[in-house]
Structures are given as C-alpha cells and as structure tokens.
C-alpha cells in the first residue's frame, strides 16, 4: 500500500518536473515573444512590403485600389539613371563628412576644455550642454530660423557689429551652400553635447599616472594625446563616429524644416529629404520604395562596425 502510494507520488512528481524543465528553457523565448510579434507586425511586414513595392508601379490610384502593377526593375533603373540621385548621394556624403568631422572635433575639444577649467565653470558648462542636448529638433529649427532671419536676425546683427563685414539684410538661405551651412550649424550645435559628455566620461578613465609619466618623459600635450589619451579613448571615438555618420547621413527634420518645405528641391536635397519628397510627397510610392531600399542598404552597411562592436561588448559584460 505505502509502497504503491510512494511510487505513484514519485511518478506523478517526475512528469511535472520534465515539463517544468522544458518550460524553464522556453522562458526567454516567451519573454522576447511580444517584442518579436510587435516588430514583425509593424516593421517586418512593412519591410517586406517595401521590397515588393520597389518592383511595382504604385501611385495614388494603386494606393486606393491596394494593388500595384508589377514592373520589374524599372524603378531601380529609373533611380540609378537619374542624375539627381547621384548628385544627392554625393552631396549627402560631403555633408555627412563635414557634420561628423565638426561634431567630433568640437565636441572633443570642449571635453578637453572641461578637464582644464575650475569646478564651477565645469558645472556651468555641463549644465549648458545638457540644456542644449534636451532641445527638441523642431524647436531648435524655429529658433535657428529666427536667429538667421535676414531682416532682423541676431546673427546678421552680431556679425556686422563684430566687424566681420556688412551682413545687414544678408540672406542665409540664398545659395545651396549657405542653406546647408545653416543646417550644419544647427546639427552640430545639437550634437556636440552627446559627444562632449561621452568623451569627458571616457577621459576620466585615462590613468593620471600614465599622463604624468609621459609628461615627465618630455611629451608635449599633442604627443600625450596621440600616444596616451587617444589609444585609450579609441573605442569611444569609433562608436561616436559611426553613430554620428549613421545619424547625419539619414537626417531629415533639420534640413527639411530649416530650408523649408516649399524650398527643398533637387539643388539642395539630402538623402533623407530626397526619399521623402520623391516617394511620399510626389505619391510615387514604388519609386520611393526603391530609393528607400537603396538608402537602408547603405546605412546597414555603415552600421556593421557599430553593431558588431555593441554585440561584442554585450558578450563581455
């Protein structure tokens, strides 16, 4: 009696245990399931749609009928033969290099400045950086628009007062170069805080003794930077640079709003604006999809460095 009862309890216990073990193995999958479901539904499906759209004639009539017309590679050949595409790509690359370069150089310089100033200046400067960082892009655009306004913008006034030249009624939005320079100024201003604060945090990791030892050996500040500080900060610079490249290459809000929806055209397109106007604003979704896909592939290629780095760091933790 007792033996039978015991064995039955053992048996009944054993089954749930294997079930439980199987369940425990599936816990992580159950936990990531919701994210997977949401992302597949609202990103995976659209991305699939993007690929099919890029092979279709898909304008407003097709959007209403919900049925595109298959046209093979016509969208791609139309885009790749379009001079506007290549010019835009080149312009965006130059723009990206200028923006990233300025952001990293200025951001890093301010980080080094932070190390050299007194505590109260450091606190003040850090607070200022965080304030700038927190400004929403659309708000910053409006402020820029006001400051660079040709009639009574403060920029013209200050430049004239400082004796840089006569900038009274100077229109900063007259030429393509000048327009994109204003956009650059706006983007760099907004991006500096992230770089500065990250580099400054990185500088705290540089061992003091190492710098002092190098200084005793007679190394000047530039030499110390090149041979001591920079190698230690290298992973940070790598990440900051790749992130900045990815962001600036695809930037949309600042150029679109600062140049103005009615003034963006083929002479001043950046990739983000180009894909938006050609695809969405002109309601040529098929061709827009082809451009989007080309752009996404380019950014994906640029992201490889960053993503690999992040995955590796995720493992070592």
């Amino acid at each position, binding site marked *: 009696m007792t033996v039978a009862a015991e064995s039955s309890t053992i048996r009944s216990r054993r089954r749930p245990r294997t079930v439980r073990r199987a369940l425990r193995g599936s816990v992580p999958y159950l936990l990531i399931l919701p*994210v997977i479901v949401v*992302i597949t539904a609202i990103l995976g*499906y659209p991305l699939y749609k993007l690929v099919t759209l890029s092979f279709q004639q898909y304008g407003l009539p097709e959007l209403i009928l919900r049925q595109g017309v298959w046209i093979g590679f016509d969208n791609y050949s139309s885009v790749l033969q379009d001079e506007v595409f290549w010019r835009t790509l080149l312009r965006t690359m130059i723009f990206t290099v200028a923006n990233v370069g300025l952001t990293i150089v200025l951001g890093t310089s301010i980080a080094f400045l932070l190390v050299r100033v007194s505590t109260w200046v450091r606190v003040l400067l850090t607070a200022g950086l965080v304030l700038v960082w927190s*400004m929403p892009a659309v708000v910053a655009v409006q402020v820029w628009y*006001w400051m660079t306004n040709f009639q009574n913008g403060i920029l013209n006034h200050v430049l004239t007062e400082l004796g840089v030249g006569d900038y009274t009624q100077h229109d900063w939005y007259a030429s393509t170069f000048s327009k994109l320079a204003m956009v650059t100024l706006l983007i760099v201003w907004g991006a500096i805080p992230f770089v500065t604060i990250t580099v400054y*945090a990185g500088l705290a990791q540089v061992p003091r003794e190492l710098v002092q030892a190098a200084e005793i050996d007679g190394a000047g500040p530039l030499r110390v930077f090149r041979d001591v500080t920079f190698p230690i900060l290298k*992973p940070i610079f790598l990440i900051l640079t790749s*992130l900045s490249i990815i962001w600036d290459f695809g930037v949309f809000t600042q150029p679109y709003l600062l140049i103005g929806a009615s003034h963006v055209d083929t002479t001043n397109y950046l990739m983000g604006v180009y894909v938006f106007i050609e695809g969405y604003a002109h309601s040529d979704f098929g061709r827009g999809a082809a451009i989007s896909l080309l752009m996404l592939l380019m950014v994906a290629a640029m992201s490889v460095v960053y*993503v690999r780095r992040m995955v590796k760091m995720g493992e070592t933790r």
Partner: protein
Amino acid sequence: MSTASESAPRPPAPAPVARRAALVRRERRRRARRLAWNVVGLVVFATLVFPVFWMISTALKPDTEINSLAPTWLSTDTTFQHFRDAIARPYFWDTVKNSLIVVGAVVALSMVVAFLAAVALAKYRFTGNKLFVVLVIGILMLPQAGLVIPLYVVLARYGLTNELMGLVLTHMVILLPFAVWTLRGFILGIPRELEEAAMVDGSSRLGAFVRILLPLVAPGLVATSVFVFITSWNEYIFANVILTDQSNHTLTVWLSYFYGTSRNVDWGGLMAASTLTAIPVVIFFLLVQRKIAFGLTAGAVKA
C-alpha cells in the same frame, strides 16, 4: 674621509626664499593658465546656450523690441502676451491632448513589452540571443526617412492613417529596440548575488525577481520611460505623415506649421510656442540624462 661626510651635506641648500619664489611663480602661472581656460569655458558656454536664451528672451519681449533693428538683449518690459497668443492659436490644446495620448500609450505599451525582452537578454542564455541583439541594434540604426513609405502604405491599407493609434504603433517600432537595449543595461547592473541570496533563502525565481530585482531596477524603468516619452514627444516625420488633419496633429507638428507661409512672421508667438513645446522635454531630460546618456555607448564608457 668618511663616506658619511661626503653624502651628508645636501647640495648647497638653495636659499629657501628663492625656492619659495619659484614655487610662487609656478603657482601664479598655473593660476593664470586656469583663469585663461575659465574665460574660454565661459565663452563656449555663452555661445552654446545663446540660442536657448534668445528663444526665451524673445518670447518675453514686446513686439516693438523684437522688430526693431537694434536688438534688446534682455527686455525690461517683460510681457506674457506672446504665450497667451500662442495658447489661443487654433488647435493648441487639441494637439497637446493628442501628444499626451500618443506618448502615454507608447510609454505604457513599449515599457511592458520591452521589459520582458530585456529580462530575457540580461538573465538567460538562449540560442538566437545574439541574433536578437543584432536585430534590436540594427533597427535602432535605420533612418526614419527610409521607413516612411512602407509604414505609410501599410498603415493606409489598414485604415490607420490619420489615427493616433497608427502613430502609436509607428513610435513603438522606433522605441522598442531602444527600450529593450537600455533596460537590459540596467538589469545587468544589478549584482546576481542579490537574487541568488534571495533564492537560497527559499524564494522562488519569480519571488526573488519581484522582491529583489524589481525594486532595484525601478529607477532604470523610470529613466527609460522618460526617455521614451521625450523621443515620442519630439518625433516629427511620422507624426507629420500619418496624422493629416490639423486637429489630429501632435504638438511638434503644430509648432512646425506655426509660421505657415505668411510673410510677416509672429516671432514672439513662435518663440513662445517653441518654449512651451520644449519645457516638458527639458524638465524630464534634466531628470534622467545621467542615467540614460551612456546606453548607446554601453561598454565603451563606464558610466
């Protein structure tokens, strides 16, 4: 004779006065240098902060001072009229309400979903782990302008354009990966021993989780929610594309249409509206900046 006598007399001690003078000189030079750096620091500070200052200062100035050719740096004739005008503009309160609804839904939905995934990434080793991380970070990097067309077409197909729900879903695409990645960092920051100790004391894994992990990770949850809030509040391109009716716009889009195409821009009103849009963001950002800043560079910087 004795070695002691050779080594004992120190090199003829420099007159202490001269030594001190050298020290003082060096100290003075150090101070001068620091002073110079401080001046540079203050100039940089003033330049960086100027646009923000100019926005607020313009918003508080009477029109005569704004439109005069000689700028008034700080008005003595402060007025809140521009703020009253901005608020009285059509659709201000509608768009505030829309923004709050969208942001609220995005925060609530994405935080629950993201937290579960973050626990999986931080606490379990499973096959496909790496692939999932690549997916999460990869999506974070996608340029939003490139996603407008597919998302718009799909949302249009299901009748979700011009619906706040459509925008909520879109924002979740952008923000879920971000939230998963940041929360994972916060959970990893909690020592495993704490949880193990609770389990040794007889709690189940879930019990240990609820009683030990959850309270410790709460600040991280708050910080991530706030950041999701800010990003969703600031987002422009999707809000502009998906919500077509003016009464359906979010506050950010409302602001972008503020000056419209009219030639005489109401600068005071525009700056007041800008200030109003920025205020909630700035306040929240100041609260969480420290906690969040290092998510994107995790590992490269020890925060």
